């Protein structure tokens, strides 16, 4: 059953009702066709069809609006524990799913899956896209994180007891790292703990409890760390876990050259500082991820516009894709109009021109 078509973009949607509904999508799934597409899928879900497979062998183009329609349908399926798979994607369309990290969510598959792609989860192509997202989100966070934690260590050193040095330990995969330290002595003493036989910050991170060593002279729990700390004049240490949820994200470590420097009230204050730092880290992680998602969506729209303008120029100037892109870029540089804006102008001019010749616009069948 063909339920919708649009001759201008070649968009076509056919539905075959079965236990798993098969929806064949052809042509361009873009800002024009996406609303109709989303409405059809929503109607299917509303009628109790919770398992949907999209067959995309004839899908020639998908943009951010198309992805948005898919995401909207996926959201409708969540409450009914439904499933949606997207099969037969071209390399270009599959790349869009990879970049937006949606391969897993939509069980996205290419037209011709590469051999051995399903042998092991570790080798699936979406690993590349996941790595991109993680790397970018991580480096975006790293700059802010360093600033925030540097402030935290400075404040802890100034406000808590007779503290002479402070640092923050964080988990990174299976390792511990010092993300910020008030000085190099403290950083070194942290690192001795990570590579040697442990110490207060390792114990606080692993066990999620505050570790207090009031007198390193009498301390028996750790070997190399205690010796090296005493060699550098440290007499007492206090490590408080950074707890978000069940597993501590790391520890706030305070070092002092005074024996028994951290009294009961100081230990309570250190705990407060650690909780505050953990909440800050948690919030920072969420905020950065959200900002990053928005930027990626915006970048995808920009890429769509540029690709369309490239297509117009290829036809208009009878050049290949690279020459069309170079023309756009040179034009942008010459006029100091951003490339994206230049591309948008070209797409809109072309659209206006088409509308002038076809005032009825695209007819939906």
């Amino acid at each position: 059953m063909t339920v919708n078509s649009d001759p201008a973009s070649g968009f076509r949607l056919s539905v075959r009702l079965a236990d798993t509904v098969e929806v064949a999508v052809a042509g361009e799934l873009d800002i024009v066709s996406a609303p109709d597409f989303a409405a059809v899928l929503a109607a299917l879900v509303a009628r109790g069809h919770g398992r949907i497979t999209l067959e995309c062998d004839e899908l020639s183009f998908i943009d951010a609006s198309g992805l948005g329609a898919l995401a909207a349908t996926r959201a409708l399926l969540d409450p009914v524990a439904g499933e949606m798979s997207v099969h037969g994607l071209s390399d270009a369309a599959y790349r869009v799913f990879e970049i937006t990290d949606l391969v897993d969510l939509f069980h996205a598959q290419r037209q011709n899956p590469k051999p051995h792609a399903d042998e092991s989860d570790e080798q699936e192509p979406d690993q590349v896209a996941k790595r991109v997202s993680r790397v970018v989100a991580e480096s975006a966070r790293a700059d802010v994180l360093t600033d925030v934690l540097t402030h935290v260590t400075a404040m802890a050193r100034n406000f808590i007891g007779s503290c002479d040095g402070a640092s923050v330990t964080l988990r990174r995969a299976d390792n511990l790292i010092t993300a910020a330290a008030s000085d190099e002595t403290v950083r070194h003493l942290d690192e001795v703990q990570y590579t040697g036989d442990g110490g207060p910050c390792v114990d606080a991170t692993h066990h999620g409890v505050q570790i207090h060593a009031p007198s390193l002279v009498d301390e028996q729990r750790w070997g190399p760390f205690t010796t090296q700390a005493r060699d550098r004049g440290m007499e007492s240490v206090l490590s408080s876990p950074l707890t978000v949820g069940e597993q501590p994200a790391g520890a706030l470590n305070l070092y002092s050259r005074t024996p028994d420097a951290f009294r009961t009230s100081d230990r309570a204050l250190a705990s407060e500082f650690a909780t505050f730092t953990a909440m800050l880290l948690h919030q920072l992680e969420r905020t950065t991820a959200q900002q990053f998602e928005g930027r990626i969506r915006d970048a995808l729209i920009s890429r769509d516009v540029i690709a369309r303008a490239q297509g117009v120029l290829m036809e208009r100037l009878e050049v290949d894709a690279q020459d069309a892109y170079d023309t756009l870029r040179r034009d942008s540089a010459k006029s100091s109009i951003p490339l994206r804006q230049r591309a948008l102008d070209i797409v809109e001019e072309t659209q206006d021109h088409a509308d002038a010749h076809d005032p009825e616009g695209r007819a939906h069948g």
Partner: protein
Amino acid sequence: MQMHTTRKAVPMADPPLDHARIGAGLSVTELWLRYFALGGNNEPLELEAYLHGALEPTTEEHNLIAHAINERHVELGGDHPVPYVNDDRRGGGT
């Protein structure tokens, strides 16, 4: 999207791309987002390798990165300090 039809290496730009990036006040992440929005297809780590000279970009990649940096300079009221490579074959304009 940006197409890559050749893999011809180009000489190191002068001033180096990373120098221009820092001059434009862009973090590597911010530059990657701009580069990606302009059609770039490489991952952030590869972009970083181009910036530091560990990998040599193709002519097309170099010009794309240069343009992403130059657009930021223009936003800040400046000019286009990063030169494009092999860009005098034909005139611009559409």
